[in-house]
């Protein structure tokens, strides 16, 4: 990240995988993939696939961790060993520990925690295939799973990655772009109010560039959120 690659990533206006800068990869979303979870979803952006499952609200143990006036949310972001080109040893590492935290903070504002005192909602995100933008894909899956679980929610959370490669702003970075970007930004918002719940930026940008990147991210979050809502609508009204 933050390094301008020698290879050209945009040729004739097309990215390495043939997309235009403003194209998100093909998205697939599926609900109810884990039988015993209260809610679950599998979301793919191209070859990045995340499965999320939500358990709870359920009573929090050990008891001394309970808070009498509010519930809590816990998250675990994990990558399958085979999800990346160089096999990842099983178990949490520093990166997944940090991402577990930012994912939690990205989702938390969307939930009425005070509705389930002494209890926890546990959100598990497994990355099955990683080709860039894994954390935002995981957040999109987790938000769907939360809705499917009937968690008390103020709004959904929708996330996207935006970046700068070859001095061009792009959306939904794939793995190659992620590694060679001049800048890489992950953003999550609650679409109804455009409130930011996640913002992580790497690379080198001027203030103006940052603000442009954020608008671009917001716009794409809204598009993705339409797809999330469509899926949920089908589940609850259709078929």
């Amino acid at each position, binding site marked *: 990240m933050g390094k301008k690659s020698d290879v050209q990533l945009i040729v004739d206006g097309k990215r390495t995988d043939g997309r235009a800068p403003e194209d998100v990869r093909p998205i697939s979303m599926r609900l109810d*993939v*884990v039988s*015993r*979870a209260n809610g679950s979803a599998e979301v793919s952006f191209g070859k990045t696939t995340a499965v999320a499952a939500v358990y709870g609200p359920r009573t929090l143990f050990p008891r001394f961790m309970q808070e009498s006036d509010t519930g809590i949310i816990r998250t675990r972001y*994990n990558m*399958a*060993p085979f999800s990346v080109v160089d096999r990842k040893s*099983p178990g949490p590492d520093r990166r997944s520990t940090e991402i577990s935290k930012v994912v939690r903070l990205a989702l938390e504002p969307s939930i009425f925690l005070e509705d389930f005192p002494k209890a926890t909602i546990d959100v598990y995100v497994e990355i*099955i*295939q990683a080709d860039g933008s894994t954390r935002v894909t995981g957040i999109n899956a987790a938000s769907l799973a939360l809705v499917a679980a009937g968690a008390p929610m103020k709004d959904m959370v929708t996330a996207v990655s935006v970046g700068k490669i070859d001095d061009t702003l792009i959306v939904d970075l794939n793995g190659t772009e992620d590694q060679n970007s001049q800048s890489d930004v992950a953003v999550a918002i609650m679409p109804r109010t455009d409130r930011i719940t996640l913002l992580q930026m790497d690379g080198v940008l001027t203030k103006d560039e940052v603000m442009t990147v954020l608008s671009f991210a917001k716009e794409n979050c809204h598009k993705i959120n339409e797809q999330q809502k469509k899926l949920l609508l089908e589940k609850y009204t259709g078929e």
Partner: protein
Amino acid sequence: MENYALELIQKGTRIDERKFDQYRNIEIKTGVIGPAEGSARVRIGDTEVIVGVKMNTGTPFSDMPNDGTMMVSAEFTPLASPDFESGPPGEDAIELARLVDRSLRESKCIDFSKLVITPGVKVWSVYIDIHIINHQGNLLDAAGLAAVAALWNAYIPKYENEKIVRGEPAGKLPISFKPITITVGKVGNTLLVDPVLEEESIIDAKMSIAIRDDGKICAMQKQGHGTLEFSDVDKMIDIALKKSEELRGLI
């Protein structure tokens, strides 16, 4: 719920109306994980397991200088079941990984002699990772099936200038057998295969039996809290022999 499943079995039927020697619907998809050299996603009913095969280079064991190596791991992710916990693999995950390991190793499924780069110095190491996505019973049979399917789907990447060139296959992984693990459970006097979760909790004991293509048994393990009679083992092997052929046909 558990009593209901038991009651049904005592009446000669099952909670999902299957026959006692009938598996749920089985679905096998291979090549599903881009970054892996081999992969398979197996569903037995709602139970779902992904196995990914990664090829790395490593050092051979000093007593096997002319053989590649293999390592099987399993993650029971807390996503897949409320009974699974975060943290290092527990005894059930370790047992499952070791059982899959033994079925592959004892059956000589992988031809390790063809995985040598420099004898005694550098060989291919086959990492087989079992990832549980949805636990609705009979994990071992699903994991075993996915492991074999992923291995048959796997390739050896190109190796040039002392480096692996990822994404460029140099040839298929050399596989000779398709060992199939069949777990037969005992409830009272009834023997059954492919228990769902509700049935697993009322099983007295079960036997996992790995069968090679030639009908030879290459691994067995009694599981569960109860006991078995010697005559049970006889019947269980017969069931396993029959069902293993059926499942092998799916790969």
